[in-house]
């Protein structure tokens, strides 16, 4: 309860701040709310835009880094029809929710050149065939491995789960290391990990399958849960993985205590940075899959949308084009390591010089998929989290969890 009060107070404070500053001059004020950018690249770009556009003043409003806090703050603003914020940066899983609520507007026809963007991020800004936001930067699950240990053992980077498990047994076990760490706590990250396991066994939770062929969906879920349980049962993954979020699992890997890690691209710079015990020893690969299947990475990242309640939509859209343009993306990639959503930036010499590892990511980005896109996503996410976590803690059987999950998801999709 205290947290809720705190959130509410912060919202009030934020609103009053915005309200005050807009009175200052005769310029048109555009407020752009997004998660804080520690590199300062975003603010530099905003300053640059302001310098080139007299009569318009864009203000960057840094939001709390925590995704859920940001979500709840935006829901509070928008359901109160707050007009002081013009542009919102939205997590890829919020598009449908915000579009259905009528809080963000459809982009004008031809506003962006869709063929220039990566497929996964582009799909994430689409709701019922209409574009509601511009992809800003992206994220996708990748497998980190210990290059040195695999080479020493003469083992190639595993592509199938069978080879993967063997590598864990042969390399990690004798060393007393953990084989594979990932995100198993009950939170949004578990959904991302679970879906990757699900896709890697050939399963799917897309609407058509869940509604029309529930038995197929159930079979995939059961198999994916079995795969996850096999990591725990065999000791490849420590029991504590069920309490880990990104940073818990990352720490074990960069401490040199785990052979494989599933995580987001940000880990690369941590692994190569100060304080890492595995500097120069890590490699990146797509996640393994079951023989005969393909692996896919869950898409993360952020998009920018125009608020329905904006009083200056034209000016806001002009700035939106600038901040999601190629130059901005390059700048943010070079200064902050943010992964661009425009295809061609991955071939840009300056970007690659600053981020040599982007070249390895491009392979991973060939196969990405989105989490279910639905205005009911928060509920669907909780259903997945709950059923997966309860299975992994041996509360329920995989088959029971699969049946419950698919049935509950189908009920929501039918709404």
């Amino acid at each position, binding site marked *: 309860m205290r947290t*809720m009060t705190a959130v509410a107070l912060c919202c009030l404070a934020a609103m009053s701040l915005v309200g005050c500053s807009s009175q200052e001059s005769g310029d048109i004020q555009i407020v752009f709310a997004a998660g804080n950018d520690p590199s300062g690249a975003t603010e530099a770009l905003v300053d640059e835009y302001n310098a080139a556009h007299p009569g318009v003043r864009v203000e960057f409003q840094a939001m709390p880094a925590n995704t859920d806090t940001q*979500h709840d703050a935006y829901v509070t603003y928008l359901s109160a029809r707050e007009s002081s914020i013009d542009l919102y940066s939205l997590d890829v899983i919020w598009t449908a929710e915000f579009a259905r*609520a009528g809080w963000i507007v459809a982009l004008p026809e031809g506003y962006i050149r869709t063929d220039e963007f990566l497929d996964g991020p582009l799909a994430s800004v689409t709701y019922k065939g209409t574009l509601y936001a511009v992809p800003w930067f992206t994220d996708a699950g990748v497998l980190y491995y210990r290059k040195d240990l695999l080479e020493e053992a003469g083992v190639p980077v595993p592509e199938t789960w069978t080879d993967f498990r063997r590598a864990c047994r042969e390399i990690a076990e004798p060393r007393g290391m953990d084989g594979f760490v990932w995100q198993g*706590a*009950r939170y949004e990250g578990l959904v991302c990990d679970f879906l990757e396991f699900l896709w890697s066994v050939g399963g799917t939770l897309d609407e058509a399958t869940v509604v029309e062929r529930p038995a197929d969906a159930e079979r995939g879920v059961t198999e994916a849960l079995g795969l996850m349980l096999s990591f725990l049962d065999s000791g490849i993954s*420590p029991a*504590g993985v*069920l309490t880990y979020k990104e940073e818990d699992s990352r720490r074990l890997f960069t401490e040199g205590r785990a052979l494989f890690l599933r995580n987001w691209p940000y880990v690369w710079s941590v692994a190569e940075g100060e304080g890492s015990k595995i500097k120069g020893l890590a490699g990146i690969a797509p996640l393994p899959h079951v023989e005969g299947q393909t692996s896919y990475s869950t898409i993360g990242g952020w998009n920018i949308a125009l608020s329905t309640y904006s009083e200056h939509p034209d000016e806001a859209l002009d700035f939106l084009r600038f901040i999601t343009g190629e130059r901005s993306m390059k700048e943010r990639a070079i200064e902050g390591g943010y992964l661009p959503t425009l295809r061609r930036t991955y071939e840009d010499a300056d970007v690659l010089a600053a981020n040599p590892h982007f070249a390895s990511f491009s392979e991973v980005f060939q196969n990405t998929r989105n989490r279910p896109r639905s205005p009911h996503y*928060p509920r669907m996410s909780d259903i997945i989290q709950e059923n997966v976590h309860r299975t992994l803690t041996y509360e329920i059987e995989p088959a029971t969890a699969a049946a419950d999950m698919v049935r509950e998801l189908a009920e929501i999709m039918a709404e």
Partner: protein
Amino acid sequence: MNARQRARLAFWLLAPALTFVVVLGAFPVLSQFALSFTKFNLKFADERGFAGLSNFAQLVSDGVFWQDLGHTAYFTVVSVGLELVLGLAAALVLNRVLRGRTAMNSSLMVPWALPTVVAATMWSLLLNDRIGLVNSVLERLGLMGEPIVWLGPRLAMTSVILADVWKTTPFVAIILLAGLKSIPNQYYEAAALDGAGRWAVFRSITLPLLKPFIAIAVLFRTMDAFRVFDLIWVLTGGASRTETLSIYIYRVLFRYGDLGYGSTMTVALFVIVFVLSLGLIRFMRISGETR
């Protein structure tokens, strides 16, 4: 000043406080009651309408609600019980301390003074199975084979309760210490003259005279524990059978934006806490004939 004038003065003197109570207390509670009879989701605002008793019907058949009520009750009973016993012991010890009392009192207050979120984050690091301090100490003492997953399925609730006990025992101790200080010394002197033993003194003098303070501590702690949110949110996110009603309500209200059903549950929680407090007050007889 005649009676009428006095009444008028009293009204105006009370008015500011009353306004606060109405605006900040009664109004939100009443609007919550009103919302609990509506179908209203922030994200589907166009489907808003009167729902009659359907939210309450949903509540009755909502397994998660009753399950979380169970978790909440268990958490409350065990943590408040432990806090009371430990807090009383700490207060009795502190009451005897003659030197360095200020230092002891203030060191005791540290956990209570920490913001809950900070304390919870600290505990989640301490309790990490691989790199947490708790396990590494146990390992060094040779008391542990396999690493203990403190926040895992088996121990999650216990760990959460221990963190809460660590954090709020000082609050109970301070209230009880104030109570101990208020007991006049002559009772003890008289008991000593009569040759009463320590246990008899404790049972017949200390405990009865401390009762109102115990009642206040238990009342405050029960109300707080029943609404616990932040500690569990940070430590487990409600996983492994640690989800409390507040966390569930938060999910429904803020994540799902379902103001209608969320308000219904809030009303239920309000009623439960209200009845519980009334029961406790009666049981402890804080009001009225205390002495």
